[in-house]
């Protein structure tokens, strides 16, 4: 585990974090709160779309985000050779 590896790993981690947290923000605060009214004009089955994001959709996206993060970090651990024994 060289210092360059550590630095590269940390940069890659921060890049991944930023992308995932932007999505986290958009689905909950964006779609669920700030843009809820325009989105409610669209229907998802019987759900107004904004309402669906606020009470269902954002939670499903949160789940996907965590598993994408865990899987991507495993790959980064290997790529930068910082994984656990």
């Amino acid at each position, binding site marked *: *585990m060289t210092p360059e590896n*550590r630095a590269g*790993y*940390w940069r890659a*981690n921060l890049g991944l*974090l930023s992308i*995932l*947290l932007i999505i*986290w923000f958009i689905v*909950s*605060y964006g779609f*669920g*709160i*700030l843009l*809820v*009214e325009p989105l*409610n004009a669209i229907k*998802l*089955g*019987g*759900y*107004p779309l904004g*309402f*669906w994001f*606020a*009470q*269902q959709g*954002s*939670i*499903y996206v*949160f*789940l996907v*985000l*965590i*598993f994408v*993060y*865990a899987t991507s*970090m*495993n790959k980064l*651990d290997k790529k930068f050779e*910082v*994984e*656990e*024994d």
Partner: protein
Amino acid sequence: MTALDMWTYGVVGATFALYIGIAIWARAGTTGEFYVAGGGIHPVANGMATAADWMSAASFISMAGLIAFNGYGASVFLMGWTGGYVLLALLLAPYLRKFGKFTVPEFIGDRYYSQAARIVAVVCLILASITYVIGQMKGIGVAFSRFLEVPYDVGLYIGMGIVAVYAVAGGMKGITYTQIAQYVVLIFAYTVPAIFISLNLTGNPVPQLGLGGSYVQDGVATGMSLLDKLDLVVTELGFKEYTTQVMGSSLNMFVYTLSLMIGTAGLPHVIIRFFTVPKVRDARYSAGWALVFIALLYTTAPAVGAMARLNLMDTIQIGPVGAEDGNLLYDERPEWFKKWEETGLLQYEDKNGDGRIQYYDDKNPAFAEKAESFGWKGNEMVKVDRDIMVLANPEIANLPAWVVALVVAGGLAAALSTAAGLLLAISSSISHDLLKGVIAKNISEKAELTAGRLSMIVAILVAGYLGLNPPGFAAGTVAIAFGLAASSIFPVLMMGIFAKRMNKEGAIAGMTAGITVTLLYVFQHKGIFFVPGTEFLMPEMGMGPDWFFGISPNAFGAVGALVNFIVAYIVSTVTAPPPEHIQHLVEDVRVPGGAGAPTGH
């Protein structure tokens, strides 16, 4: 004894026997087992235990009711209490697991090379956890007294006894395996009635789909979606439209959601669960599994809330609004209605003396004229406690007695599992952070284990006492627990990992400032230490209720967190950087390699 009582005693008794059986099997022999279950819990199992740890009596009993009466506005709880797991998984859990110690204050003390910071963290942790545990104790007492017809205090003693058996003997190890069993009980108890009700109202057995499905009345499809039907039914009676009603303002909902998310990620009893898995990568996945198990309940709750509300409205408003026979005759009210009237959770008052029940929004001026023209003299359902939405749901939907019994066992499982997790966080911070860390550093492991057990017993007794004599501020406790965690613990943990330059002066100043502004705002609205009459809102100076951009005190934790970050940053830039070995420690926490089993040394 009725058949329902037999079922309830049977199901509750069987679950309690199971918890005690687990306690005998999973006894803790070392401090490692007592604090972090030996660090060998499988990530999926830990996810399940975390879900039970997290989902309290409030999630199980109260949340669906909150949703039923706040509609879209209650989304803050749904998003806030789940979105925090994204922050926990991405920003805290893996790094704190890598650090590999037993408690949250221990990380803060080591990272900020300061006993003072550790002690401040212990104080925050104990305050947040104690206020939280009072609610669980009340939940246990209420569940017993309502369903088993034993007095509130007897129910509380039984609950304390059960927790004592498995938490004192097994510590984190006993608590973990019991929480897994409790999760199974509570999720089964929550989803079974929901499936039946969804089937009943929409023909779809999956509540998450049923809520977006079309409304079926008496077995005949109406072609109208369930949510449209609900919007129509409530607005016809003057209530706010279900799918659009907001809580405060959009800004308030935004900040409230953020406070709950940050608070969730900063609550110590949840964080320490991630110290129990073997590796850093397990901590990442485990947070995902925890959210899977939580989401099962949290995506079902909106369906339970909406469908229960529709059932309630339809039970009372049996015909067209305004028609003489459109309202249910009080004498013809169903059995469950009578039963819940006895508990005082439902209250009826015949204001216009017509013997029928009018349930509408009499605070809506636009509807008042219409109501008067019908000869209505005000809303006659003077009390509809929101907790009924879950507790009475099986009866409203005519489900068999064993389902009702299951709901009781589920509510108790939710309260017991959360109480045990909180009590462990409290007792480990006393025996490990204060005793071993500050007062008696040379104490042997065996003595520390005994001290851990003793502080657990004391914590249970204190929690029980507060459950029996809830202080006046019990109603404000959730705000405090989340406000404290959000404004103090979360920022300090996050900066400890992501800001290498953050030093002890910055951390202590940040924590103190964050907590202070949050408490001040809460005290300003609810009284100094919640003593009634000491509120100090100053409308003449532009400080009326929710004066800060319309943000309610419950939602203020996010503002406190922001203050924490800013103050910490400013103070740290004008003081000396942390010593070299601390900067190495941060570097080391950031990479997974080299994580061993958690140690207290």
